[in-house]
């Protein structure tokens, strides 16, 4: 235990250097934690227990292709399907294109059976279903534009040559979209489009998890040789499909993380080299007193590990604290809804700290510990 005290004393002997090294490592690991969180948020879209039971069917060629509404009745009849709704991305613009948010025309009759995870009162559900130009909005979306039940809003069509004027009939919370969507009646939309009778996707709720693969097979099988072949996948896979469109961005972020880690290593190695160089004589004294080379090595590496770990802890936890306390949705005008530094990321940062600590000290510490005592004592630092 004596050597632990010595270790801490050594760490504190040049306080400024310790402070600067720890700060540098902490700032870098703050960056690592942030970038890792970007990746985990991308790769793990928000889910609720119900989203595992939801499937999305789109046209096999791409989302740009529409599906005939007549398919709905067929899907409804299939085994394992509890409810199904047709939805159409409306792409309406609220005042400015920069106010971008998701807005869909949707079937209302089975809407809340498909989305039982939305928290909304029975009265508001009914009001939405009965008002032809009614709409419901997510709580975060309502907060963003300061909308209340009863407000009338105008959405200018971008994908379609029609505009809609809606009355907000309810505000929901929960749901795997984190309350960021607007839904209005498909009937209203279809009427404006001269009863064109098409949807973009079907959202299906399966009865049990076992029904999920069965439904995929049934739906896609039924329409395979029709004019409108489909592709059905789980809600999660569907959302991850959007993430994969970002292309090389993920690879790029991962590369940046590795470069940052390498940079920390250089900084830490430099500090340890400086600090060990100043202490060559002292190390000679320790060895003359009977400390073994391995003990000296352990102590020096321990010092570096301690510095890096403290830096890693500070960096990753400050990221967790900072992103936990600012309203990211407000800060990024709805672009980022959730930004949560996971325990996994915290652990990763600690492991990086440990790794950097060991690697950066090993070479100078090994050399110092192996230096013959006489040689070390003779040296003038």
């Amino acid at each position, binding site marked *: 235990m004596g050597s632990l005290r010595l270790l801490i004393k050594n760490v504190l002997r040049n306080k*400024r*250097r310790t402070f*600067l*090294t720890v*700060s*540098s*490592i902490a*700032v*870098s690991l*703050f*960056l690592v934690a*942030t*970038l890792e969180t*970007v990746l985990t948020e991308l790769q793990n879209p928000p889910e609720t227990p119900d989203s595992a039971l939801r499937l999305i069917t789109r046209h096999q*060629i*791409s*989302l*740009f*292709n529409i599906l005939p509404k007549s398919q709905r009745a067929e899907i409804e009849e299939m085994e394992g399907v509890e409810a199904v709704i047709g939805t159409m991305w409306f*792409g309406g*613009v609220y005042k400015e*294109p920069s106010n971008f948010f998701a807005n869909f025309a949707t079937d209302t009759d089975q809407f809340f059976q498909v989305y039982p995870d939305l928290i909304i009162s029975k009265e508001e559900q009914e009001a939405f279903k009965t008002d032809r130009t009614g709409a419901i909005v997510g709580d975060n979306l309502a907060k963003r534009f300061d909308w209340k039940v009863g407000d009338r809003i105008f959405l*200018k*069509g*971008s*994908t*379609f*040559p029609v*505009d809609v004027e809606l009355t907000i009939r309810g505000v929901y919370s929960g749901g795997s979209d984190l309350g960021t969507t607007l839904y209005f009646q498909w009937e209203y939309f279809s009427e404006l489009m001269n009863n064109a009778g098409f949807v973009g996707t079907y959202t299906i709720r399966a009865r049990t998890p076992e029904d999920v693969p069965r439904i995929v097979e049934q739906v896609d099988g039924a329409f395979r*040789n029709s*004019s409108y*072949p489909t592709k059905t996948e789980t809600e999660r896979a569907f959302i991850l*499909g959007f993430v*994969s*469109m*970002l*292309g*090389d*961005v993920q690879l*790029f*972020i991962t590369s*940046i993380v590795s*470069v*940052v880690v*390498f*940079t*920390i290593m*250089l*900084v830490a*190695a*430099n*500090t340890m*080299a*400086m600090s060990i160089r100043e202490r060559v004589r002292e190390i000679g004294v320790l060895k003359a007193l009977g400390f073994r080379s391995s003990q000296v090595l352990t102590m020096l590496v321990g010092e570096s590990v301690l510095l890096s770990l403290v830096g890693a802890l500070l960096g990753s936890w400050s990221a967790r604290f900072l992103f936990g306390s600012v309203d990211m949705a407000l800060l*990024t005008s709805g*672009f980022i809804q959730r930004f949560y530094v996971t325990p996994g990321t915290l652990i990763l940062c600690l492991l990086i700290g440990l790794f950097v600590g060991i690697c950066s000290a090993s070479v100078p510490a090994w050399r110092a510990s192996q230096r013959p005592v006489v040689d070390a004592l003779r040296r003038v630092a």
Partner: protein
Amino acid sequence: MKIPVKYNLRSLLVRRFGTVMTAFGIGLNVAIIVVMLAMVNGLDATLVETGESDNLICIREGSLNEVNSYFDRDKFDLIRFLPGVARDDNNEPVAVAEIVVGINRQRKDGEAANLILRGTSEKGFELRPEFEIVEGRSFEDGLRELIVSQSIAERFEGLAIGNTVEMHNSDWPVVGLFKTNGGAYDSEIWGGYEDISQVWQRPIHSSVLLRVDSPQESAQLIERISEDERIQLNAVSQDEYFAEQTYSSIGLKALMGFIAVVMGIGSCFAVMNMMYGAVMSRQQEVAALRALGFRRMSILGSFLTESAFLALLGGIIGCVLGSLFHGYSAGTSNFASFSEIVFNFRITPEIVLQGMIYAVVLGILGGFLPARRAASVQLIDVLRE
């Protein structure tokens, strides 16, 4: 009196290990920033450099992009015979009506993305003068053939010459690879307008592309198109249309700014550490300099110079490392068209300059406190030691 710069360079050389380590640290930081700048620049440039200023693109009023624009086919004749539209040698208007659809295809990395499939015709090639077939031949109308941009063929599965693409229960052979000037059209697949319109059962046009007779008439023609009650389309110059799509890079820009600031702070600490080390171990030297009559300001300046040199070295390392990524081909989602856009990282002299300035700023910020510490060395204290 100024302390010679040679003194600083030699001092850096004495502490080579620390100098190299710190410079490399700054270098990696600069490299990340340079590569990010090259990436954003490449993405923006790909969009900005697409299209000609004397071409107009007409899309449905209210739609934000060709992808979600569609209108009746009879509007084409209303537009192309308007005064102000250029005519070719046969007195035919230089205009093309096209259809744009999206198809979801798998990349070679295993993930899928949307691609723009454009139905066009001969006039479409003429309106894009950089267009050329690099391999194979062009598609023939009525045969349901496709030509694929070279960069997309390289990046996606099953889009090489000889492959067939199954769409709407019919097989479309890829018969040629094309390229344009490295712009947005280089991320597309083209086929015959009639073929695509027919098979997709969409008897519509997505956009009309036309050349104006003379650049001065452009504004008038735009007005003529938007004010014509029968047309009701929005006309914009083709280059502006694509330049507006550069908001796709806004996320990357924000990320870059964040990384530049945070990583920069980390690097400042590292420089500070190194420079404090330099100052502390050279206290006697500094005192000697003072004793020789050098002023405090000279000493401050000298250490700042040293720190700036250290950072400059880092900047050079960073720019060299970053330059290795010049021309690296990547792809991401164009938010405007919701489809893949392929671009090349592009390093320009301005980016190198920005990288160097960034490095020197890091050096000066990180070196300031240590330099001040050096300047405040008390002659008497040091000499007494």
